[in-house]
């Protein structure tokens, strides 16, 4: 069983969602339901599983329902139909106190426009989650200081949010979410409001933290490059429906439909594709033939392999993590993969 299980979620906005639910279940699409009943379909029969410790990215354009979806995970929004469970526990069955306890202990959320408390300084913002839990001031400031130092905010403890740049503010937002040491981080377009360079920095920072912390991260974005960069798996939403779920390479190499294909057209494939996904596997019998060739790691991205390929002009041996040859990669294969 997966850690987070979302089963057949429907979310319909409007005065009488139940009436439109039957239409939606009958297969009517978003426009049809809006025309017939005046109700907006936010999510249409979405089922997902998210494993513990993975970075799961939900990608979609505005109006695709991605922000609605992430708000179902901490019940800022309740579904019209369907079920959601964390570690086997049905979160929709929780009453208010149980839900608040669940949010306090197990979830942290980061927001697009940061959602910082403007009347509190950095220290008190970071310690907010602990304060809500009822942790004593001394203790929560010790814990908050540790996280503040870790993300490079030391020295800014007494600054107020409006005295910080956007990038710094989102560092505070991220630190605030981490300070309660939650199992799950929900990130709603967390880096979308930042400048490209800062955004890239924050993505690297998040990946670095994740390599140490192994949180379960659910990350929402409208930017496919961002999704491909940080996601272990990616779900693509369109008009409230799930179009495709897969690893970044699957999304790029095997787009489920024209919609996904249109997205992936402009992607820099060399940064997504890895040696192992385009190599020709070695059959068990012919083993010694490839030893003279330059070696590359199976997890290396094409961007890193290209210089080696250009310098040698020959095929390469692909090694797995134990340095066992598992395949070969020719310049021709690389060209074909990059060409799509």
């Amino acid at each position, binding site marked *: 069983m997966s850690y987070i299980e979302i089963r057949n979620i429907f979310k319909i906005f409007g005065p009488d969602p139940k009436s439109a639910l039957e239409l939606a279940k009958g297969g009517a699409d978003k426009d049809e339901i809006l025309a017939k009943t005046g109700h907006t379909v936010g999510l249409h029969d979405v089922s997902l599983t998210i494993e513990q410790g993975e970075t799961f990215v939900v990608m979609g354009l505005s109006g695709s329902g991605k922000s609605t979806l992430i708000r179902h995970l901490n019940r800022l929004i309740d579904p019209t139909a369907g079920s959601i469970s964390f570690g086997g526990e049905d979160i929709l069955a929780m009453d208010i106190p149980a*839900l608040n306890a669940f949010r306090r202990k197990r979830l942290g959320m980061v927001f*697009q426009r940061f*959602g910082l408390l*403007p009347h*509190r300084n950095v220290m008190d913002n970071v310690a*907010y989650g602990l*304060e809500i839990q009822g942790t004593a001031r001394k203790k929560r400031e010790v814990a908050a200081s540790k996280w503040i130092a870790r993300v490079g905010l030391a020295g800014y403890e007494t600054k107020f949010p409006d005295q910080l740049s956007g990038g710094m503010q989102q560092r505070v937002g991220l630190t605030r979410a981490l300070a309660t040491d939650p199992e799950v981080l929900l990130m709603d377009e967390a880096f979308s409001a930042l400048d490209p360079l800062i955004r890239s920095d924050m993505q690297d920072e998040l990946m670095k933290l994740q390599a140490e912390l192994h949180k379960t991260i659910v990350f929402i974005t409208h930017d496919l490059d961002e999704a491909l960069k940080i996601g272990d798996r990616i779900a693509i939403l369109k008009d409230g429906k799930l179009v495709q779920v897969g690893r970044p390479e699957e999304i790029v190499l095997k787009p489920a439909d024209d919609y996904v294909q249109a997205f992936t057209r402009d992607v820099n494939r060399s940064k997504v594709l890895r040696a192992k996904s385009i190599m020709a596997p070695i059959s068990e019998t012919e083993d010694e033939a490839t030893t003279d060739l330059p070696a590359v790691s199976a997890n290396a991205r094409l961007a890193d392999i290209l210089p080696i390929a250009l310098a040698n002009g020959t095929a390469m041996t692909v090694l797995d993590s134990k340095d066992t040859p598992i395949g070969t990669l020719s310049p021709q294969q690389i060209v074909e993969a990059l060409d799509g």
Partner: protein
Amino acid sequence: MFPEQLNVPLGKWVNQFVDWLVVNYGAAFEAFADSLLTVLVALEQVLRGAPWWVVLIAIAAITWHASKNWKLVVGLVVAMFAIGMLGLWDKAMQTLALMIVATSLSVLIGIPVGIAMAMSNRLRAVMLPILDTMQTMPSFVYLIPALMLFGLGKVPAILATVIYAAPPVMRLTDLGIRLVDPEVLEASRSFGASRKQILFGVQLPLALPNIMAGINQTTMMSISMVVIASMIGARGLGEQVLMGIQRLDVGAGMEAGIAIVLLAVVFDRIGQAYGKRSQRSPNAEDA
């Protein structure tokens, strides 16, 4: 001519209702009036009993606490001093006592009502027309029932003042809470904050500049009403204005008018200084 058969004897009904109130609940109103009067009299005795320079020092201290601006402190002390020079110190202290009680009562009632209005759209829909009525109804009109319920004197003056002055603080508390950034609220909810933690930790602190503006308006309106309330026996500066009108003594009326304006300026500046301060956390200055 509008047909007379269609006339509704609303006036008569209201009279009957007020009579009924007086007959059945007169004792309760009296008890309430007595407790209010006790507070007011005590405050009045303190203000009038204290030497004038103690009051000046107190006002200077409050102004300094609110603004940290010595120019404003000097300005407001001079304004109060001028009231004394007009020979209206004692009357100003009476007005001040009435105003403090009326404003405190307005704020005490107004903020919880404003909070409730922000929480419930239905209550807000009911309250808004009531608040409009409270503010647009000529103030003399509700002096009359207040008079019938509580007799002549200070208590009906305070109640009429509260009715007139409470709406702004209710409106601005409601508005301030509704203007809080929804993403900040969402963030607070996502951390599992209870409704109480959200109200006291997020909504009220962020609504504070608006609430302070409401309190300031309420203070200004209670000054103007306290003056009108002298018609039903409230003492103070209004009494002096009334006397000026009755005796056609332009000079006396003018003096009292100037004193009222000075008092209003003092309270407006102090209120605004607190309002400005509330827009930023106090420790922001040294950050």
